[in-house]
């Protein structure tokens, strides 16, 4: 086999004799482009034409690589499967060395481990329960580790990383003001507008102010803020810590003697605990402003009467209750965000999953805890 010009296209010819012996003559360049088409056609031909033996003549090939070797191997296997003879003609050292490269495979049985497609449902249930058990165990151990880190901060206040905490407060709090403000303003607007349609029938326009104030301050303000923060910052915590985890930065911290929880999670949790209630307060104010806009422009209320009605309705307890709730939400969001970050194992996809899971879990926990608060308050009051 010589290599005069490598650009002769691949061709093959089937020569049959009367004894039922078939020779396949290969010519030209047997490369990755040629192998696919050839293999697709040749299987059918072999099964329909070969009755006693098949010879493959590769002397006129001017290029041969492992794609060619693959084709030869598959032809050989195909011939063996129908119990006929296989012969290779025109080999040289180069071809043999390429074939040898894969020789182990030519003889190797099909022993590729493929995961079974159907699995025992009991095994599935067991696996999934174990997964959840370990997940919950890790969650609890993370609660413990955060609690210990907080204890350390109370004993040694200097061990809190103030720089990181401030940066985090800026990212989580200050940067979120515009979006929280806009959403709350529109929410107040919508609420005032929708309730006014009903209240107007009774001439009770002024109670729009009370409705907006109570609904926002005790329920929607904290919840909307928490959901926005979960989407903006909870996912970011998970992605940041997750990326650090896969690039071994967390391990580096650990080996340098830092407590990763204290170093990474606590500044984020402290920052959230401080800024989320403030954001909730902003949310309340913007929502009341939204309600005020509707009241003044559409319900013939004066600004002062709207505001005094709002002040009359709200009690200090109501406001503090709302802020307390939003502190709990802040704790949940930042805790889940950091937890999911620390749970990352694997590559880039795992970081994405962690971010998604952080948002979903924290929104679920926010709603769950909010209902708990509602129950507590009902029995308390």
């Amino acid at each position: 086999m010589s290599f005069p010009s490598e650009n002769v296209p691949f061709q093959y010819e089937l020569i049959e004799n009367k004894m039922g012996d078939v020779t396949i003559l290969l010519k030209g360049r047997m490369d990755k482009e040629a192998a696919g088409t050839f293999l697709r056609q040749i299987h059918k031909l072999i099964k329909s034409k070969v009755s006693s033996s098949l010879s493959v003549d590769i002397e006129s090939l001017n290029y041969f690589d492992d794609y060619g070797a693959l084709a030869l191997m598959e032809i050989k296997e195909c011939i063996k499967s129908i119990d006929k003879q296989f012969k290779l003609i025109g080999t040289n050292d180069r071809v043999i060395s390429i074939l040898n490269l894969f020789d182990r495979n030519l003889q190797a049985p099909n022993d590729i481990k493929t995961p079974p497609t159907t699995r025992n449902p009991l095994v599935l249930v067991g696996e999934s329960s174990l997964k959840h058990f370990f997940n919950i165990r890790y969650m609890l151990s993370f609660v413990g580790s955060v609690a210990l880190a907080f204890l350390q901060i109370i004993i040694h206040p200097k061990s809190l990383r103030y720089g990181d905490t401030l940066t985090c407060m800026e990212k989580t709090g200050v940067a979120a003001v515009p979006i929280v403000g806009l959403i709350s303003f529109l929410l107040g607007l919508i609420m005032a507008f929708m309730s006014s349609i009903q209240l107007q029938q009774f001439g009770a326009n002024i109670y729009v102010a009370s409705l907006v104030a109570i609904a926002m301050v005790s329920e929607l303000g904290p919840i909307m803020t928490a959901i926005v923060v979960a989407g903006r910052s909870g996912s970011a915590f998970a992605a940041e810590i997750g990326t650090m985890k896969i690039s071994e930065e967390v391990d580096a911290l650990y080996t340098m003697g830092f407590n990763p929880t204290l170093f990474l999670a606590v500044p984020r949790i402290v920052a959230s605990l401080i800024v989320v209630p403030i954001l909730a307060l902003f949310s309340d104010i913007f929502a009341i402003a939204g309600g005020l806009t509707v009241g003044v422009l559409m319900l013939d209320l004066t600004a002062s009467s709207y505001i005094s009605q709002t002040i009359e309705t709200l009690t200090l307890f109501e406001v503090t209750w709302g802020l307390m709730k939003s502190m709990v939400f802040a704790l949940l969001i930042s805790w889940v965000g950091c937890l999911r970050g620390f749970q990352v194992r694997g590559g880039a996809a795992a970081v994405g999953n962690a971010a998604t899971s952080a948002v979903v879990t924290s929104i679920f926990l926010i709603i769950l805890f909010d209902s708990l608060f509602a129950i507590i308050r009902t029995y308390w009051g």
Partner: protein
Amino acid sequence: MTTQSIIKVKNLIGGYGEEVILNNINFDVKESEILVILGGSGCGKSTLLRHMVGLNRPMGGNIYVDGVDIASCHDAEFKKTLKKIGILFQGAALFGSMTVAENIALPILEYTDLPKKSIKNLIRMKLSLVELDGYENHLPFELSGGMKKRAGLARALAINPKILFLDEPSAGLDPITSAEIDQLILHINKVLGTTVVIVTHELASIFAVAQRVVMLDKKKKGIIAEGDPKFLKQHSENETVKAFFNRTSKSAIQPDRN
């Protein structure tokens, strides 16, 4: 074996942004040879490699890969050229969400029309070539550093490129694994006739595999030596080259014996 040049670098000016790291680089890579680009840290080895595979456009000059100037060609032509090259990145750059087999299948599915069963067989062949038999269904994070490199090499070899680029193939590996990778490179070069361009500064690897070396220097921003590494080690007049091959410090810090 032909001695035609498969890569020609002409008057290349390279770097990132405004910063020129490589100035006026000229060299050829011959067909089916193993060329090592070497030099100290920060001399622009990896930058040169990035220019040669078209990841960064050079600031000036031409790079002909199999006759196509990848510094100025059209996208369609560039894509055609990409089929002729395989790259092993320093960290192997395996896709973390895919198994080893899926990683290798990616270029095969894109560039050939092999039937599914044949692709499976081919993947087994490629894995056997890099001695990773049976690791088809592993995810990259389950592999050790050396295994990742091998899997990356199998992916780089998936569509039988004419030219194989290896960025620090033995960095971070133990001497035995590193020697095995060297053997593998020699084997691939011999059997498949693949042209291999390696960027490295591991002396043992250089002497084991290189047929020719091109040495870059940070200060000169260019090539300071070219040729057979064994010859250069013994006969080079250049201080940097001598210091590099003999592992001596150029600044010759004398230990204070008092």
